[in-house]
């Protein structure tokens, strides 16, 4: 059946119908589309509270937040890219590049090393952005190149080696907390707020959405399309690098060979489960955060109940489909 309308055809509609059809929220598809993720997060929390031992403890919840923070950061950048009707497969490689650079430059001090690592992310973004906006490549292919090559480059830089990090300042980035909240989580939350503001209130943010909504119209309306596109990919790359730095600090080691593998899929899943359409033209920041949290809680649940990998993967697949199905855009017809 194609998108059965909530009101059955032929059902008697009151002749002078009020402009907004009165429908209880629980029967309104728009409601699920808007709030589905949050409900799912709540449901999973509730489920765990009842079923899983020691779930609703501060320690455990903190652990979940700390683990999800890098994914959130990457997903925020990804959400912007997806808003322009693009996608960035190279985020995992950008993380690896940042991680590989850190130990090489920590000798010059923490700040130079951090700046360099972030810059590496920005440069990957720049390359992607130029390939997409100037060369006119399709985003998947444009970023596929760095997906393949970026990690290789990171490994070349690191000589294929995992390196232990001993710089205490960098390490404290991974472990320190402020008022009981880990710094990693604070950074992710701050970034989410910043991106929400960017999307809702800045020229740049609105231009992102317009470009994703109708590229030709944006061009004719004089929007700096190439600049905005390049900027979006640079942001995404930089966010990925930041996530790479934080993950490295937490791991206490720079591990370019495995850091951020499959991150692109996690991030895209978070964005899409969070209600941002892959067809561009809208960005849901809070939804993206909720999407990432949902997938994190799901992974945690599966691990805590010691389900084998096979079951875990099938369960994840089912949840993704269910989440997207509930939140799907129902075309009225």
């Amino acid at each position, binding site marked *: 059946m*194609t998108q059965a*309308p909530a*009101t059955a*055809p*032929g*059902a*008697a*509609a009151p*002749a*002078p*119908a009020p*402009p*907004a*059809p009165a429908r209880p929220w629980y029967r309104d598809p*728009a409601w699920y589309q808007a709030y589905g993720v949050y409900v799912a997060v709540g449901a999973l929390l509730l489920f765990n509270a009842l079923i899983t031992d020691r779930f609703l403890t501060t320690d455990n919840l903190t652990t979940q937040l700390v683990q999800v923070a890098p994914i959130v950061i990457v997903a925020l950048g990804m959400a912007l890219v997806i808003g322009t009707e693009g996608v960035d497969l190279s985020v995992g490689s950008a993380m690896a590049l940042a991680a590989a650079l850190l130990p090489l430059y920590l000798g010059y001090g923490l700040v130079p090393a951090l700046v360099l690592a972030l810059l590496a992310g920005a440069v990957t973004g720049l390359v992607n952005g130029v390939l997409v906006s100037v060369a006119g490549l399709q985003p998947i292919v444009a970023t596929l190149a760095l997906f393949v090559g970026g990690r290789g480059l990171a490994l070349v830089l690191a000589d294929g080696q995992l390196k232990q990090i001993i710089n205490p300042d960098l390490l404290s980035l991974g472990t320190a907390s402020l008022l009981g909240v880990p710094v990693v989580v604070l950074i992710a939350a701050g970034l989410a707020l910043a991106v929400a503001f960017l999307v809702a*209130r*800045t*020229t*740049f943010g*609105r*231009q992102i*959405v*317009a470009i994703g*909504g*109708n590229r*030709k*119209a*944006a*061009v*004719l*309306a*004089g*929007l*700096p399309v190439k600049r905005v596109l390049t900027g979006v990919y640079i942001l995404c790359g930089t966010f990925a690098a930041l996530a790479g730095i934080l993950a490295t600090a937490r791991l206490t080691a720079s591990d370019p060979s495995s850091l951020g593998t499959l991150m692109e899929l996690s991030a895209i899943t978070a964005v899409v489960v969070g209600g941002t359409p892959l067809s561009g*033209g*809208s960005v849901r920041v809070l939804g993206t955060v909720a999407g990432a949290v949902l997938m994190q809680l799901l992974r945690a649940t599966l691990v805590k109940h010691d389900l084998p990998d096979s079951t875990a993967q099938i369960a994840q697949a089912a949840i993704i489909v269910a989440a997207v199905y509930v939140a799907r855009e129902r075309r*009225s*017809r």
Partner: protein
Amino acid sequence: MAPPEAATPGAGPPVLQAAGVGKRFPGVVALDDVSFDLRAGEVHALVGENGAGKSTLIKVLTGVHRPDAGELRLAGEPVRFQRPFEAQQAGVSTIYQEVNLVPLMSVARNVFLGREPRNRLRLIDFPRMNREAAELLDGFGVRVDPRRPLHTLGLGTQQMVALARAVSVQARVVVMDEPTSSLEPREVETLFRVIEELRARDVAVVYVSHRMDELYRICDRVTVLRDGRHIHTGPLKGLERMRLVSMMLGRDMAEVRRDGVTGFAADGHDAARTPVLTADGLTRRHQLDGVSLSLHAGEVLGLGGLLGSGRSETAKALAGGLALDSGEVTVAGKVLRRITPAAAIEAGISMLPEDRKAEGIVPGLSVRENIVLAALPRLSRAGIVSRARQDRVVEIFMKRLRIKASSPEQKVGELSGGNQQKVLLARWLCLEPRVLLLDEPTRGIDVGAKAEVQGLIDELAGEGLAVLLISSDIEELIEGADRIVVLRSGAPAGELAGDAVTEPALLEVLADSAPTPRPAEEAEPR
């Protein structure tokens, strides 16, 4: 082809009926208890203001939307079309308002999509398909290489292709939603000829148009919708034009009569001596061939020409949407070095594009955001958009252009065609341009709004704006423009000024330029 006896319009049996049909969209009642019947061999006009529900009714009739209430009957039998496919199977063929063909596919493939000619091996016979497409289109006065991708054709030509497709199936009912909105007089004549043939074959035709004179020329009966409600159905003959308009607008006759139907003032404008914008020898291979023109503050310059004569290209080139091989554009004495859309806007040039669906609206964004899109940098400080300033601008323009939306936050994609056009106009006006390039500004706009827009054009010119007006509506061009430049095959073919701006004079220049359809090879994707 001789029209059948005028005495028996629509006397045939009802082929397609809608009884008490209702359709709601979130926040809007698009159709409310509308009944409609269509008889074999009649041409049935469907009229109403923008947003009255004409397109929605058509979509209900053809299986795109499912009605919330009421039922459809095909030859007396109740039917429920689940999708357009089923309606087409049942012999209902439709040309939708926005050209709905596949841009990347060739003309021939578009014409025959879904019913391609096969050879003995049951495989598509491309030579035959191309041949048949070419012959078919030839009958519609369109001479294009059928292997050309559709998107390389102008909107008008695309419309003719859609027409050819819809008519070439053996349908019982042919529905046409604003088929002439981007057609030239010559094509309109072709279309009318086709409609006569359909009528002679006892096919029922639904015809939607905002052009009154067309309705009176070919339609037998008329149904008027207003705000989603059925207002009137009856023979068109003997129905006074003013009365029809008053039914559509819901205002009384006297009021309508007083306001008049076209919005242009009778007298011309006082143009400034020195031009604001001069274009010199605009050239682009195979599209433009040395177009020169000058635009003065406070005047409306008409740009005339046949389909594909390069009017849209000229406007696009001036607005930076099309790269030029050579030529120079000067605005207020300053030569524009590189024309990009941003540079053109910076220089005070605004262009309302011809194809509002593909090049204009951002359907997923709200009315507010669509209006302020180009003006964002001006409405923001340090990159942060001021919501208050936005709201002010949006409020002013929604009022001034009478944009009909449930709120500024409604998605533009949900508005009726005419209102979308107004939103776009607002987008460009809020930039406070010096030069306004209008490519078919009243395309698909209802009589009331059309008069408003025309009045607005007058007013803007009066305020000192330089306006370039491209219109396929000859009447509009004659009445609106102070001066008309006519293009032929991308080159200037003549100019009418002052008292010479008359319909016969224009038609004469156009006729001169008519008989040389450009070889298809020369065209260019745009």
